[in-house]
């Protein structure tokens, strides 16, 4: 089975319910799209992420009402360095979509989605803990897995695998 090339043309992907909904709301919020290996990725503008999530959750046509996961990928040393990744799932329509927000390496911060899905709480704390990304408006942004007095953020690519010695 040969892999089909990824589609990144916004015009071709306008029909996807999540893309259509976001474009109808604010075309500037969509920075790019990518359809690869049957998975849809939407790059969302940093300041729009919370509202975009709320819109997709309440969409009457295809509500992405379930937040599967929040995580992050560090593309050090290139900039924008951090890609925060949200995986949304639609329980009625069984559709998945991935939202991504790009963040620069200096003082990375974005809005929390805990007000949209309270379940984002632990996921965001984990990303804060392991990547050092701040989520504004999070009710309790403390380290989740590492000890409180730990130095550094272990999943960053400039953090050595064996830790600082």
């Amino acid at each position: 089975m040969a892999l089909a090339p990824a589609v990144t043309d916004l015009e071709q992907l306008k029909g996807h319910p999540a893309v259509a909904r976001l474009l109808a709301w604010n075309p500037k919020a969509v920075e790019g799209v990518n359809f690869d290996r049957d998975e849809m990725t939407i790059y969302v503008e940093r300041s729009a992420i919370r509202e975009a999530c709320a819109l997709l959750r309440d969409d009457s046509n295809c509500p992405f009402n379930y937040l599967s996961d929040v995580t992050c990928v560090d593309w050090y040393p290139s900039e924008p360095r951090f890609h925060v990744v949200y995986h949304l799932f639609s329980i009625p329509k069984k559709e998945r979509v991935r939202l991504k927000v790009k963040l620069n390496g200096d003082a990375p911060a974005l809005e929390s989605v805990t007000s949209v899905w309270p379940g984002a709480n632990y996921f965001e704390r984990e990303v804060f803990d392991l990547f050092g990304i701040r989520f504004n408006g999070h009710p309790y942004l403390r380290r989740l897995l590492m000890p409180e007095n730990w130095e550094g953020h272990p999943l960053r690519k400039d953090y050595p695998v064996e830790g600082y010695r």
Partner: protein
Amino acid sequence: MAHLTPTPVLEPGQDKTMILNMGPQHPSTHGVLRVLLEIDGETVVRMMPDIGFLHTGIEKTCEAKFYQQVVPLTDRIDYLCPMTNNLCYVLAVEKLLGLEIPPRAQWIRVMMNELTRINSHLVWLGTHAMDIGAMTVFLYCFREREDILRLFEAISGQRMMTSYFRIGGIALEPPLGFFDRLRKFADKFPSRVDEYEGLLTGNPIWKMRTQGVAKISAEDAIALGASGPTLRGSGVDIDLRRDAPYTGYENFKFKVPLGKNGDVFDRYMCRVAELRESIGMVKQALDGLPSGPVKANAPKVVLPDREKMKTEMESLIYHFKIITEGFQVPEGEVYQAIESPRGEMGYYVVSDGSSKPYRVHMRSACLANMQTLPTMCEGRLIADVVAAIGSIDIVLGEIDR
């Protein structure tokens, strides 16, 4: 929605309340979960789980290994359902590679995956019942679990850390006589489930401890990211095996048991019904098992058979190359979600085109399910906390990774 956001810090010395520290060495916290309880008499006013005691940095370790070397790490995340984690990871990498898996391997994967689900549910049922005070069930459950572990040993050489599923198929064709042993087990197992149910389902003490306890509504469970039996116990009809089939689940017939009230009892009934469905699927897999190879035809990715490696030059070269420098995976990213015994287990694998994964993230069903605990427990008695923790079936290895 505001009622679902937990009140942050537990301040000691509030009027009339005190702070009780439960765990991380408490026997009913299933490993190393620490729960902070603010109690007023025997009533829980606020609750805050504290995790991270088992954090081993597996996600970071994965980034330093070849793709095939990550498989044994995935066993260690959730030591009660190793094959589910193997499956989720190999499916993600196979999707990245665009590999086609032969039907026989897929059917054996489903068979073993369902057996793993039974194994995991048995440990849950035994420990959950023991937490609430029913010792006998625990011993009965572990009797059957022992049979399953022996089957695992026969098929993979290991009782618990099986690493049986590999990228491109399964490790080996099952040994001679394995399917007969499995069928014998599958034939006797439904009567054993009757036995557990006979001890618990109609038992008035069990009902008093579970019915109406630690309730959660469907809306709250969805908003908090719960999945699996924790979500289905509240009546949300979602099962990824049926709704987003993977590795050939579309060929199997099974019902998705649902609860109604979202209490401990309904979650218990969901899982017990799943035991019966799973053993039914094992039987279906045994009956319809296709013949053919158990590994994909992809010499650059799949290790050659031992015999071929000893007799064919080319196989020896491929073997050497896969072991010493791994195999390259095309750039891209994949989120593969499967229905683990606890809920939606997801692997997010990112490739930068090299032979080591750029990022492996595990979406833990338990981590999300645990967020429902404060909603379930606040306003109830301390004894109900024990029942609630048991009912969401957490494995701390998966939560902390």
